[in-house]
């Protein structure tokens, strides 16, 4: 019996101790007419060898392409140490550290992770993770509405130059609470969200302004001016940031005169494989004054009876298992193992290593954009400064180009047209530190050939 250790003799002994004659008798409180006669529809068991062969065959069908897409999920080098350590059974098979004394490993990892996110964002406090970047933003919006005591507004200004999937998730999770999302257009020339566009809403005050740095197009926003505008309109500032970019970019806590109030985003670039979209981990940081509105688990340092330093979950009065219907969020299980990986990744790279990765991504994407823009009809859509992604316009419709590139083994970019029809034929490309000059050249030659055959 897979994973069930009982011998026939033990089963008999156990039934005798209970005082029943069969296992079947243990289900005697379930109304007989409800009992199931077997799980038709579930296949027969496989051995470990058979299931391994099956999965290997399935994996062979999914041979990866040379990846030039970012768009919210970034392929970076993951040091071997990261998953060697994170896969240790003591991390992998533990649960939420309810018994702090028996969970000091997990709790200290969470505390170290929180410390690292605080260092990167320049804010005061961090939680121990949320599901992913998009759901973290939705939680940040709900938090901002609760935390903002200067206005009773339920309006949130949210840039159109934010990841379309993030905007959808925010809508799913905030609409039931009556929150109104007001979309702020981007400047068609620079690709930036401009203060004038915020002002053009005519809004005198609102609950929060979402600022995405870099934005979905890879363009850098003028975060200081946007932050100051928001604060002048009683709004909290929610920064949505790529943690890798914070190796180089100004931390949200230093934006404008007062700094962002909440920062959140996707921790996937920090040691998490692409895995078709998950598991990743959302993170969230805030100023100390808002910490009681922060959703999710928080680890804190405390002392034991002997006065020794130790760690425990804290501020649990915010949470669903205490506060039930009045909790800051319904979140219970978060993404602990992914946070373990992110903490180890950041420990290995340090500030210098992280800055090198970020710089290499910027350099590779610049090289890619330059090389592709040398092809007739291809060029950058925006003039604003960029981090490690670029929007390029193409002279022909995108889908056929991407399909042909895929047939050549190249994942050529994200088609922006369905979400941004105003951009015409445009793709979002990214070349992380993994892409070699040869791969970039190969992409350029393939694209050139495809476009030549189309014209």
């Amino acid at each position, binding site marked *: 019996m897979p994973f069930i250790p009982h011998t026939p003799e033990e089963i008999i002994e156990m039934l005798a101790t209970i005082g029943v004659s069969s296992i079947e008798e243990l*289900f005697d409180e379930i109304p007989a007419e409800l009992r199931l006669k077997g799980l038709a529809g579930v296949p027969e068991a496989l051995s470990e060898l058979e299931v391994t062969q099956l*999965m290997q065959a399935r994996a062979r069908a999914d041979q990866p392409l040379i990846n030039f897409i970012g768009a919210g999920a970034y392929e970076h080098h993951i*040091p071997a140490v990261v998953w060697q350590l994170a896969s240790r059974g003591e991390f992998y098979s533990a649960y939420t550290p*309810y018994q702090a004394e028996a969970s000091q490993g997990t709790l200290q990892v969470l505390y170290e992770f929180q410390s690292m996110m605080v260092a990167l964002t320049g804010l005061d406090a961090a939680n121990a993770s949320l599901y992913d970047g998009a*759901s973290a933003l939705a939680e940040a919006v709900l938090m901002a509405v609760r935390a903002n005591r200067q206005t009773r507004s339920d309006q949130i200004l949210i840039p159109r130059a934010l990841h379309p999937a993030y905007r959808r998730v925010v809508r799913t999770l905030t609409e039931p609470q009556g929150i109104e999302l007001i979309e702020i257009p981007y400047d068609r020339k620079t690709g930036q969200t401009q203060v004038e566009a915020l002002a053009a809403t005519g809004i005198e005050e609102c609950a929060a302004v979402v600022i995405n740095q870099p934005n979905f197009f890879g363009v850098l926003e003028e975060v200081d001016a946007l932050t100051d505008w928001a604060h002048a309109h009683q709004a909290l500032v929610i920064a949505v940031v790529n943690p890798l970019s914070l190796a180089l970019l100004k931390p949200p806590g230093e934006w404008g005169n007062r700094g962002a109030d909440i920062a959140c985003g996707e921790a996937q670039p920090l040691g998490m494989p692409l895995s078709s979209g998950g598991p990743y981990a959302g993170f969230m940081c805030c100023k100390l004054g808002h910490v009681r509105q922060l959703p999710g688990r928080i680890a804190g340092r405390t002392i034991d009876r002997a006065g020794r330093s130790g760690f425990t979950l804290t501020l649990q009065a915010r949470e669903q298992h205490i506060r039930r219907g009045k909790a800051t969020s319904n979140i219970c299980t978060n993404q602990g193992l992914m946070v373990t990986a992110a903490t180890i990744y*950041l*420990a290995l790279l340090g500030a210098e290593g992280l800055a090198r990765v970020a710089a*290499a991504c910027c350099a590779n994407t610049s090289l890619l954009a330059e090389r592709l823009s040398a092809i007739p009809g291809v060029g950058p859509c925006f003039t604003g400064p960029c981090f490690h992604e670029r929007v390029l316009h193409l002279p022909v419709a995108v889908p056929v180009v991407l399909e042909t590139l895929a047939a050549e083994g190249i994942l050529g970019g994200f088609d922006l047209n369905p979400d941004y029809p105003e951009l015409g034929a445009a793709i979002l490309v990214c070349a992380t530190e993994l892409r070699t000059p040869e791969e970039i050249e190969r992409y350029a030659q393939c694209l050139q050939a495809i476009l030549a055959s189309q014209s």
Partner: protein
Amino acid sequence: MLIQERSRPGRRAPTQAPLQTPKLPDLPSHLCRTQRPALPEVSELEVMRHYTGLSQKNFSIDTHCYPLGSCTMKYNPRVCHALAMLPAFLSRHPLAPAEQGQGLLACLYELQEILKAVTGMDAVSLAPAAGAQGELAGVLMIRAYHRGRGESQRTEILIPDAAHGTNPASAAMAGFQVREIPTGPDGDVDLAALRSALGPKTAGIMLTNPSTLGVFERNIRAIAEAVHGAGGLLYYDGANLNGILGQVRPADMGFDIVHVNLHKTFATPHGGGGPGAGPVGVRAQLAPYLPVPLVERTADDGYRWLTESDRPQSIGRLTAFGGNIGILLRAYVYARLLGRQGLSRVAEFATLNANYLLARLRSAGFTLAYPTRRASHEFILTLKPEARAFGVSTADVAKRLLDYGYHAPTTYFPLLVPECLLIEPTETESKQTLDGLAEALIAIRRECVENPELLHNAPHHLPVSRLDEVHAARQLDLAWRPTVGEGSHG
């Protein structure tokens, strides 16, 4: 010691990042940081030793029996991990075309089918990233369903007082008012109270069955009839599905919506607090509302994602991409390993183990919260008599159990049973382990009489003694900060 405290300026793990320092990008200086973030500067060996050392301070399923009630801490088979970590699965981008993910999508499609079979539901979405997100998806579907029928006055969700805290929290997030339903003395929902709470405002009820009291709700058919009769829907919280897997299906009990915690019933890792996965299943009339994305089999036996444009009535998207795909793959491998008979055996042996442990503890003099009832896959002891007689608390007993090398059961939950321990051994523990756990609890009970101080000051043999949670909340220390001069200038 923290990893940050091991840091020495200039020490590095240099091979982990690109070797050459590329030309720093030409970014506007006013958008750049002026001071490097205070991240540790340590060698690779220090990282290995530090985190290996931390891991050794954890109890885990791999090292200890972990009978945490309603959490189903069963063995996590390593082949599930190994196969989900095959390089082709790990390196696939979420926005890669479906043609380059047919192997993955086949696994996910078949997992949807397996979950339909074990729940009896007509359609399944794998999108929710955890149980609580599955619950939220469920109540959002209840909301969408009533609105679709022009019944938006249905604003109340009924929830038994024994429910997990996530139930009322999820209902509140979806904009519902929560009405609590009391439990009768035998552990079943108070049917009369339920009937009197039903009315034109009723949107639905959220139930766990077996309940968090460790018993099967015997009146489930009557509850379903009453709630449906009032125009409401029934939501099944799958937290305790392990106790009935293959024995009875939520759909047959009358439920309209379920979520399944794959990190419980399907043995995917708990990871120190996630990632989990909380797929949702529904009856046909609710299928249009399922969260996206879903996997569809195409006419030519291929697979594709269904997204917002295919599913205009969907409650929408819950995470940026497809949820916790890697966890879904682990659950799929687990289901294929066990097969139809293996999955049914799960509930049989989980129930056998719980009832065996209960019998041993009862005969040793422990007090059961529901002595007239058959235990499901978990059961509740109340330590109220011990607390009264010897001045020891449930927390004392729980901490002392750590000294004996067992993780504590769930404590102080459900809230309606005073001084309670909720114990769930799971099917993967052997009789010897259960005997050891029973003997440890019996020994601790003896200590209550002979030396209660031993319990008050427990644990004694762990890396730290009892931690001060009040101090943690009053003197907030949530992040390490460099002392002046430690933050290096870049």
